[in-house]
């Protein structure tokens, strides 16, 4: 999970408005400006796709947790059922992310339990879901990835 779009945009405002010392002008300032432009381009994609990606992931996690809950003891199964029963009433970034954090914690617990039981079928489903989750949050950049 990465910073949410409202925070990202606020950060760009701060980056652009902060005064630069004389030694950070010239090529460095140009490069930094290019990075801000790149981040704004990524922000546009996030604004378009971000809420839907979060809502999809939350739905997919609830479906998996609900289905898996019955196969586990009362403590874990109950927690999974409870998490699966919540709905995304508020579609704001903060509410979606808060719900997602709770669901991801349950998913981690479920995956650990599946590994402990050597439940290959459930592990396979979770691994497939990871691929989909990561893909749903993809943002495009021209050229190769970078660090």
């Amino acid at each position: 999970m990465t910073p949410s779009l409202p925070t990202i945009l606020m950060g760009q405002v701060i980056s652009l408005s902060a005064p630069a010392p004389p030694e950070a002008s010239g090529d460095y300032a140009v490069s930094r400006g290019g990075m801000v432009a790149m981040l704004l381009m990524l922000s546009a994609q996030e604004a378009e796709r971000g809420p839907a990606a979060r809502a999809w992931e939350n739905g997919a996690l609830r479906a998996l947790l609900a289905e898996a809950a019955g196969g586990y003891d009362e403590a874990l199964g109950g927690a999974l059922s409870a998490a699966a029963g919540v709905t995304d009433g508020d579609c704001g970034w903060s509410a979606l992310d808060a719900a997602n954090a709770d669901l991801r914690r349950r998913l981690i617990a479920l995956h650990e339990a599946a590994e402990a039981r050597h439940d290959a079928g459930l592990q396979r489903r979770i691994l497939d879901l990871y691929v989909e989750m990561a893909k749903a949050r993809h943002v495009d950049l021209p050229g190769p990835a970078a660090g």
Partner: protein
Amino acid sequence: MTLAERLAAYLSRTEGRPVTVENLARISGGASRETYRYDAVSEEGRRPCILRRDPPDSLIDTDRRLEFLAIRSFLGRQVAAPEALVLEIEGGELERPFFIMGRVEGGSPASPFAVDPYGTHAAEIGEQFFSIMGRIAAEPVDGLPILEAADRPAPDACWRRELDYWAGVIDADELHPQPIVRAAIRRLRTSPPPPATKVAVVHGDFRSGNFLHDGSGRILALLDWEMAHLGDPLEDLAWAMDPLWSRQGDPRISGMVPVDEALAIWRRASGLEVDPKALAWWRLFASVKGQAIWTSSAKAWLDGGMKEPILLFSGWFTARAQDEILARHLSELGPA
């Protein structure tokens, strides 16, 4: 006082003669330190230098003494290490710790956004890149300056030390639960690699973009030694091979040479064999380490007042790309 004036005051005081600082300018790269180029001018003439200064908030918490000693360990040993000149732990006139290196002229690092970063020189660059990596692995550790600051793990403890460290970084800096990297960490713990065939210096960030090349097929300097340590040399090999550094669909590592060729070059230069099981473990580890760095980057960006866009880029775009790589890798491995 400007930074240039403070640096000149430091150099004049410590060298016991007047030194002026000219053409001081911040340069991009090395997100865990502020990096500047400048010329030190004294009665002896003009010396081109690089200043690496700790920032208020760092991408990764690294030991500048270790970095300095790692660079010093390899001066003149055919691994394109720059010259380490000054280490100032207290900060002096610059108020934060820093060190100074000789500046290597005439080269630039590859842009991470370049589609074909080395063009027709890709094979030559790949040969040098993996040869340098192999030579670092081949270097006997005893007697190297880095031993003054680095612990030497037992061959069977290298993997655990690195995994514990980077998992700890995620524990400390995570802003939101990350099930994918957590699954990878569990996987690594339950299926450890064989012991290292040799405990060697590990550069720690040996990859495309972290060396200067002259545009004509020659590597001039290996940069960013801030994560250097002693460990299993396969760690560097696996880090360089992470798909993050390569364009999707390009079978070459970082646009240089294909995997088999890279391994052959490394074997020749290091004199070491590559255990496929060990390399597979270190390759998954490389993505975990990457995700730890990007996680830390997002936190450093927030803690630092959201000022440095490069930290956000790493903590956002790169973190997501790393998650995709990890998820695909875990899916290919299948159930534990």
